[in-house]
């Protein structure tokens, strides 16, 4: 680390983490309660976990898809004639 000391990093993590602060501001404004917040976080953690499992269980992508979705044009019109 060249730019910040470990103390500064720790201080931000412990006292100024933006996700923690966002939670505190939501709670303070009465927009959510702690139980609902915890349930939301847990559902997102599970969503990411399911996505990882799905990706790892999936076959490698079809190589024919490598040059699709670059533009609306057919890849053959973009100069790949070989």
């Amino acid at each position, binding site marked *: *680390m*060249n730019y910040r000391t470990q103390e500064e990093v720790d201080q931000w993590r412990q006292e100024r983490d933006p996700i923690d602060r966002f939670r505190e501001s939501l709670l303070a404004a009465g927009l959510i309660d702690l139980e609902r917040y915890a349930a939301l976080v847990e559902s997102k953690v599970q969503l990411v976990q399911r996505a990882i499992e799905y990706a790892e269980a999936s076959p490698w992508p079809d*190589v024919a898809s*490598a040059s699709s979705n*670059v533009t609306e044009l057919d890849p053959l019109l973009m*100069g790949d004639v070989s």
Partner: protein
Amino acid sequence: MTVMTLSQAFCQGLGEEMRSDPSVIVLGTDLVDRGGNFAQIKGLGHEYPGRVLDTPISEAAMVAAGVGAALNGLRPVVDLNFIDFALGAMDEIINQAAKVRYMLGAQVPLVIRGTAGIALFAAQHNNSLESAFAHTPGLLVVMPATPADAKGLIKSAVRSNDPVVFLMHKRLTGLRGDVSEEDEPVPLGKARVCRPGRSVTVVSYGALVGNCMKVADQLIGEGIDVEVVDLRSLFPLDMETILESVERTRRLVVVSDEPRHGGLTSEIAATVQECAFDSLDRPVMRVGSLHTPIPHSPPLIDAVIPSDGQIERAIRQTLAGRESGI
């Protein structure tokens, strides 16, 4: 001779230039303690205190500071980490660094180093920008394929009075090879015939030179004697070496991992047909990547960039119909 990696050779070359010329400085992120993302500056921060500067992450500011320092008598090397990050400094590179000599008559002895070429890291860290830089009047562009050339080219780049974009291929960071302890700058604009041959000329640069050498080693068993030319400098191009080779072999394949459309392979093919049309026995073949960003998935990367098989097929196409035993 000492065996070292391409990154170590770059570092050694830059260190020697810093030792002999106190005006050489280095700017970029994660340099002083970490030595750069590819260990390309490792140790120099502590060896030359105050001359390797960790900057905030603003590529525009880094290059602008480099141009200013160059105009005021220093020889800065701006390390952009991945060359893709140059996209945040294009005005400073193309409209300032490349134009100052022409518009104001002052020289800009600036090196912009970036890691380039195609490997993992997906689309936004795998832009092939070499042709864009080579297309820009006022910039010199180099890309070594060996540790020895990394050392020799950074020496010449630092001594150049014009801005040089110094590209290091991701796949070559750890490539090992013999490097001389002597002060042997590699001249800018000079290609290297790394394998003489009689049957066909194959021109490439960066990591693809290694693929071309591998294919050449396989084809010699069939009596196909491939001459491999490593460009080393992408601007200026050493057309003299290429044309001399093509006039002997009468066949040319140009290989790159950038998208083929509008790139260096096209430039070389066009120039050769202009200057040596009557020497050619077959059409010039180009091998490049598909016209697509670089995917994240390894099998898709392999589908997009040139394979050894494609290089081999292109070589065979230039030899179609030839007498056997050439």
